[in-house]
């Protein structure tokens, strides 16, 4: 192999990512090639400097004055309250409707407490909670009469969607601000809402 062929391997060699037999081949080449040895030494030096950079660097001016006026009255709380809504798995659709009604009332209180305008994901999240609470009220007012088989289908689908929501929320909790994950969470909220809407319609048709 030539130096040009070894070049693409040197980064992974430095990072310790090569299989042992390939690493040995690189080392054999390095032992007889001054140019590649110098390149490895130079690259190692750059990487070592990068790893030694200070973890903390203070900004040249005070940033807080530009932050404080932008803070809402309270941080987002819906994510703290939401597990009550999501994690309880109803035995029956009507039990779910009753629970959603109660949870919706609690979340509406949280919503009213938070006075400041919100944007982006948090706003969408709140809209979802509101829409779910509204639907729960409608279900409670006009529950319809679902057959046992339809109830079973609805319960099974709710369980699947709730599991998907939990997984997406867990991923977002470990990777906050990831817009793709936020979209995933919102899409699953919408899926849950759609499922409840269709269940409501089905109940009306069966009654």
């Amino acid at each position, binding site marked *: 192999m030539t130096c040009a062929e070894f070049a*693409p391997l040197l*980064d*992974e060699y430095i990072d310790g990512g090569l299989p042992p037999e390939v690493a040995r081949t690189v080392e054999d080449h390095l032992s007889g090639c001054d140019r590649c040895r110098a*390149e490895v*030494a*130079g*690259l190692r*030096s*750059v*990487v070592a*400097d*990068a*790893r*030694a*950079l*200070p*973890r*903390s*660097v*203070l*900004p*040249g*001016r005070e*940033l*807080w004055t*530009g*932050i*404080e006026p*932008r*803070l*809402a*009255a*309270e*941080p*987002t*709380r*819906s*994510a*703290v309250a939401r597990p009550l809504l999501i994690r309880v798995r109803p035995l029956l659709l009507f039990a779910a409707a009753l629970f959603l009604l109660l949870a919706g009332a609690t979340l509406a209180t949280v919503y009213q407490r938070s006075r400041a305008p*919100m944007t*982006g994901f*948090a706003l969408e999240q709140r809209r979802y909670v509101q829409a779910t609470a509204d639907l729960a009220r409608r279900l409670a007012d006009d529950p319809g009469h679902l057959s046992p088989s339809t109830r079973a289908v609805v319960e099974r689908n709710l369980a699947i969607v709730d599991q998907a929501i939990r997984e997406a929320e*867990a991923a*977002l*909790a*470990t*990777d*906050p*601000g*990831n*817009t*793709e994950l936020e979209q995933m969470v919102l899409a699953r909220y919408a899926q849950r809402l759609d499922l409840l809407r269709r269940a409501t319609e089905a109940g009306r048709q069966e009654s």
Partner: protein
Amino acid sequence: MNDANPRPVNETVRRAQQGDHTAFRTLYETHVGRVYAVCLRLAGNASEAEEHAQDVFVRVWERLGTFRGDSAFSTWLHRLTVNEVLRARRTAGRRTARVTLAADPADLESAPASAPADGPAVSEDLTQAMSRLPEGARTVFVLHDVEGYQHDEIASMLDIAEGTSKAQLFRARRLLREMLGR
């Protein structure tokens, strides 16, 4: 990172989650140096980094309710910082508005909170050289060699192929070696 059992949430974080501005100010003062360092290296210039850091803390405030203690607060904050900078950079308007600022490395790292093992001069040289890298190469270099992310994680964050991440790192390291005369 994602422990099976969530850690107890720090009292200051808990108070900030309840809407306590004083507690949030304490969190800001504790973490601003780390957040700014990440913003500065990803952005390549101080003015953009300052703006990113402010956006990050506003974002943190908005999302505090989602922090459940699955990881250390500093880990959660670090990931949010990286995501926020990358998200902002995906906005075409902001990126084009800052092209001229990114070309000026003179205002970098005005006040390091602690000196690296090799002394401030080495750190300054490398930081200035990093700011002259093409954006893609700088981003991957910062995430991989400074912040310690793996190629698969970087590929996911940047929505690129793992091979592209490796190619950008290859390019960044050689450009830096040349600029620094190593």
